Structure formats: C-alpha cells, structure tokens
C-alpha cells in the first residue's frame, strides 16, 4: 500500500497546489515549511485523505509537521488505516 498511497498523495498535492510551471515534487519535498502548501489549504488535503481512506484524523494529529512531506503524510495515513483495523 505504501508506494500506491505515496503516489496518490503526490498526485493530489501536485494537482491541488502547484502551478503549471512549478518544479516537480518528490516524496521528501517540504510542503508546508517550503511554502508549497499553506496551513489553510491543508484542510482540503486532510479531507481528501479522510474521505478516500475512510479515516478520521484528529486536528491534534494533523499538524503542519505531520503534513510536511508526502512521506510523512503517507506514514500518518497508514497509522490511522491500521488503527481502523
């Protein structure tokens, strides 16, 4: 699931936040600390992940640090998917 999940997140972030002439992202690109995603716009990413994976990510877990790269987001989602059982 890990690679597929990362790919889905990467595609979503690219479509949602990048302009057409932007540099392509990697799994480790700093999304929030790098100014690619602002903290307001993180909302749609969180809701997208919750809807897609049928999970609920509490606000205290949806920190800017936890959403700062595709790798970190994927790890977070996997944790909540595993909890769901």
């Amino acid at each position, binding site marked *: 699931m890990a690679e597929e999940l990362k790919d889905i997140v990467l595609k979503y972030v690219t479509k949602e936040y990048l302009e057409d002439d932007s540099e392509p992202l990697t799994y480790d690109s700093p999304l929030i600390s790098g100014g690619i995603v602002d903290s*307001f*716009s993180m*909302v749609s990413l969180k809701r*997208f992940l919750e809807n897609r994976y049928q999970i609920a990510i509490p606000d205290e877990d949806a920190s800017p640090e936890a959403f700062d790269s595709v790798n970190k987001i994927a790890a977070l989602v996997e944790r909540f998917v595993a909890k769901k059982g």
Partner: protein
Amino acid sequence: MAYSDKIRGTYQGQLKGIQDAGLFKQERFIHSPQAADIEVEFPAGAPLKKVINMCANNYLGLSSHPDVVKAAHDGLDSRGYGMSSVRFICGTQDIHRELEQKLTQFLGTEDTLLFPSCMDANAGVFEAILTKDDVIISDRLVHASLVDGIRLCSAMHDTIKHSDMEHLEEKLQLHADKRFKLVVTDGVFSMDGDTAKLDEMVRICEKYDAMVLVDESHSSGFIGKTGRGTHEKCGVVGQIDVITTTFGKALGGASGGCVSGRRELVEMCRQRARPYLFSNTIAPVVVAGVLKVMDIISKSTERRDKLEKNAAYWRKGLTEAGFVLKEGDTPIIPVMLFNAKLAQDVSRALYDEGIYAIGFFFPVVPQSQARIRTQISAGHEIHHLDKALAAFNKVGQAFDILGKTKQEIIAKYGM
C-alpha cells in the same frame, strides 16, 4: 526596567534581518494634498520634489476634490469632530445612517453597516456570521485583510487556485456536508488588477447552495457601467450576499469601510462584529465627505468614464513601449520586472525622472513576481500620462528591459 538589552537586541536583530533581505519599508513624506501632482520629501530631509503620482488608490481623483473638501468642512461645523463613543452607546449620528442607506442603494443590496475601515469590516464579518459548522472557500489571492478575518473565525477554511471555477466546484462538492458554505473573493485583485468571474461564481454557488462574499475595495465607484462595482460589470447586482468595501480608495480616499448585503447578515454584524462593537466608527467629518462623494458618483459617470479612457491609454502606451504587463482592463496595471532589486531600482530611477511609482516584491506578491504597480486616476490628464510614459520609456531603455520577455528579463537580472 522591563525593556532589557536582550529584548532590544532581539528586535534590532529582526529589523536588521528585514533590512538585509531588502524588504525594509520606508515612508515618503508628501507635503501636498493627494492628487496627480504631489510634492514629496524623499529620502527624509531631502528637498521637496514635484512628481506625478502613479501609485495612489485615488481612482476617481476625488481625494482632494473641492466639493468633497467643502462638504467635509461643513460636516465638521455641523456635526463636530469626534463622537467619543462606539456606535451602540452614543456614537451614531443621523449622517452615519444616511450614508449606510445611500450605500445600500448604490451597491444594490438590502442593508449596510459602517466600519472604521474595510480592514475592520473584513476582520469582523466572518466571526459574526459563521460558526465551526461552516466552511469558507477563498481565492488564494484574496487581500490580506480577508485572510486575517478568516483566521479570527472558527469556520473551516479552504482555498481555490486563483479564479479557477472548476476548482471552486470541486471544493464545494468536497465540503457539501457543511452547514453553510461561504465563497470569498476580491472583486478586483489589487496586485494583479484582474477581475473576479462573479457571474460564473454566482451560478456555481447557486447550484451548491453557497453564499458569496466579495471585497470591492478596488472596484467600488468605477468598475461597471455606472461604477457600482464588479457585480455590476458581471451582471449580478442583487445576487451577492455580502459586499465589503472601503472609502479609503476611490470613494474620497480618507478612511472607513462597510459590510453591505443580506439584511440578516448585516444585522448579525451589528450585533456581533467586534471592530464595530469595540471601536468608534468613522468620524463625522469623513462621513460628510463620503456623502458628497456618493452624490457626485450617483449623478454622473463622467469620472469613471474618464478613468476608463485614461487606463486604456496608459496600458496601450506601456504595451507599445515593450513592457511586460499583467493582463486586465482595470486601472491597476502592473509592470512586471520579476526581480525584487530590479523593481526597487526601476522605482528609484522613475522617481529621479519625476514619477512616483512603487516596486512590489515578496512577500506582498509571490516570489519572482516583483513589479511596479501603476494605478491610474481620473485626476490624471493626458499630459501626466505622456510624461510618465516618456519616463518609463527612458528608464526601460536604461535597464534594457523593453521588448524583452519574462524569461529574458529573468536571465538578465535573476529571479
């Protein structure tokens, strides 16, 4: 003493950091009334210099109009200087309500509430009408005052790519479960000078049962055939749920703003908006001036018509000279230079030629999008614009940017 050397040193370090980054803002002192021709002291202590102002929000040229000045004098005489009270205690005069009624009529809404500024209107409106069960969906280029107001509100906040209506529709679907959805945009975007697609936006919002809020600060008085604003230009007068706007730009340029829109939403602001509740409203002298402005622009479109012609003349002149401009048809015409230092250097060179036009760069605009934002006024005559065009041509040649593409300018000066 609580203000220790450590505290002072910390702030001195931060200020030096701002200076070192080339982002330090300095005021230029104007010794004359606001107009097309002004006298400026810059840098501080330098002899006064007569320059043409190409960067004021004085779109209709009413900031120093004799009729407005006289009305303000009369207002001062008849209603006094200050109110020494917030509105709901003893700070409301008959002329405050008169101005609200005139604005309601002019904007084509149901009711209006004055605020000390549009910054205050935007700071107060969201918290007054929305809760944590709601969502705000805003354009990513909306004005900073809207962003701040949204931050003060408990509603969820999401954004859309600039003027991307497909993206808006996706977001309205994503947030379909929310109690209320409020879509937020500028009417005219202040840094780029482009206009919101309000007709499409209203149609989409009707489909998804969403409200629309538009900040008309850079449109009230001159956009649309009779200057009502972007909603008039887009044919959706009466269909915008909330309009916020300022009197600090085209409408006399002094200060003050308002929330205008659906009766219940305006009343919620009267009951709950904190900048309304906890701050004095606009001083009587300013209200009297804005009332005269409303009279002038309600009787005739002469000034907005002249502004439209001036803006078209200016855009044509800059285009023919070979500058890279942002697309648009408003009096905000950004000359793109991309590099922050280049923007500041060009601004300084223009000043030496008698033209006052400021460079804008990050964080006011995105990285690599530095520019000189020119703003046209009905107070400009053709001779002002011709002189400014000659100066822009001369400076453009000196910096070798005329006829150059974005890529060529970046290759020469960097991002």
